[in-house]
């Protein structure tokens, strides 16, 4: 087990890719952009020796969508890469080609928040039921269930 990554090393390797800040003693947050995220993750994998994608968290902050790619490695430091996506065009390139476990997390985010992952091999529904209406994304802050819409389960007329 090697020591934790220092902020300086992370800053150095993320030069020109994003702004790094220490958020807790073992977590470093790196703010980057959707175009730079695949490159940033590749560098995290090679230079910073991150071999485990913990998860991708997605947040609707009311104005934009935020995606956070949390990675760790033998140094046990957690690197969180943060990107923001505009509400009117929530799309980003998939990272499942670099990190296979990302595929299932991206499917989940696509399902719940309606974020598109370009180039994803199999962006199918995974969490919501098959009769859930398309273009309704329950984890969005502005989503309200519509009483007239059928969200799955047993139809009233069938009972």
């Amino acid at each position, binding site marked *: *087990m090697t020591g934790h990554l220092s902020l300086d090393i992370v800053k150095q390797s993320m030069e020109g890719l994003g702004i790094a800040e220490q958020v*807790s003693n073992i977590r470093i947050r790196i703010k980057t952009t959707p175009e730079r995220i695949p490159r940033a993750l590749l560098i995290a994998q090679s230079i910073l020796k991150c071999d485990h994608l*913990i*998860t991708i*968290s997605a947040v609707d902050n009311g104005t934009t969508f935020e995606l956070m790619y*949390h990675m760790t490695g033998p140094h046990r430091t957690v690197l969180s890469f943060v990107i923001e996506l505009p509400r009117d065009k929530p799309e980003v390139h998939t990272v499942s080609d670099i990190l296979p*476990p990302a595929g299932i997390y991206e499917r989940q985010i696509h399902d719940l928040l309606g974020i598109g992952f370009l180039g994803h091999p199999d962006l199918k529904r*995974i969490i919501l*039921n098959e009769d859930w209406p398309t273009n309704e994304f*329950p984890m969005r802050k502005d989503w309200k269930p519509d009483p007239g819409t059928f969200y799955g389960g047993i139809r009233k007329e069938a009972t």
Partner: protein
Amino acid sequence: MPEVHIPIGPQHPALKEPVNFKVVVEGEKIVSLDLDISYTHRGIEKAAEQRDFIRVVPLLARVCGICSHSHTTAFVKGIEEAMKIEVPARAQYIRTIVAEMERMHSHLLWLGVAAHEIGFNTLFMWTWRDREIIQDMLEEMTGNRVVYGINEVGGVRRDLTPALISRSFEHLTKLEDRLAKYVDMVISDETLKMRFCGVGKLTREEALKYGTVGPTARASGVDYDVRRDEPYLAYAEVPWKVVTDTNGDVYGRTLVRIGEMQESLKIVRYCLENLPGGLISVPAPRTAPAAEILSRIEAPRGELVQFIRTNNTDKVERLDIRTPTLANWTSVAVSLVNQNIADIPVIVAAIDPCMSCTSRITVMNRKDTKTCVMTWDELRKHGRNLYQKEWRA
């Protein structure tokens, strides 16, 4: 040879929650696997945004029946970090005791299920009987057998009395004897080895590449355990070691889980012996300042992650839960490729999936559009017959 699609699930009596697999096979060999986990989606993340912290805790205890303590621990740990409150040592020790007992009963449950999948029902009955010892202890300590409800923001809700602690030691001695027996069985029993060795193999590189967590990863030699990597509760003060193995197959996963149970038992005993005095909880404020927390804990099935964002109110702005089973699915799809249909039950069971079930299997032959239905029992029988024939040969 024509490709055959086998839909499995979503209901299955051996495992307790629904999932649907679509398995593509060529003859007896599996070509690919796809899954649908929508059957248990209950909108808990959305519901958590509508409730204050006090009411989110019991909600999260109901994410999963087996690891109800893990989910609440991850949440209260995160919220306490956001509120910057110091939880009393006694509370942290009690949380550790319950967490490790939960790990033991979960691993015993798994060992029983895995034994059942290969037709070793005696072991299934034994482990589930011994699991009762832990269930009884948990009931005495927390008042509940399944949803313990011991956690609250700021500490725990029930204290341990000296009488309860001395009774617990008696239970632990009994349990230790039983665990020693299981270690002996797994090492020496030929039936177990025949069905577990070389099945569902994942190399260390594959385990890392596909993002496995918990005992599945540790059985492939991946040395990650959040309890040591980012110590929480009392793990930094308790002497214990991370159990790993290099077999990488179902057998390795069995050895890791059995080793972990022995470690858990030592942790519980140490915590009971060295239980610090003092308060069991501190009053927590109703609101939390704006913060962004990544709360990771080691649940029985692996790393459980909750991403929490607070916004100066008494509710979370976002709670994103990533369960260990979701992380392990990618690897299951990989480790099943090129394996035998007969090994589906045991490989799927080997990651200890926390939401999977199957009840009937439709075997379809795409070419002549013939369909026949196989029950999970028939599939299990098919597995047993096949291996019996091989053994005799």
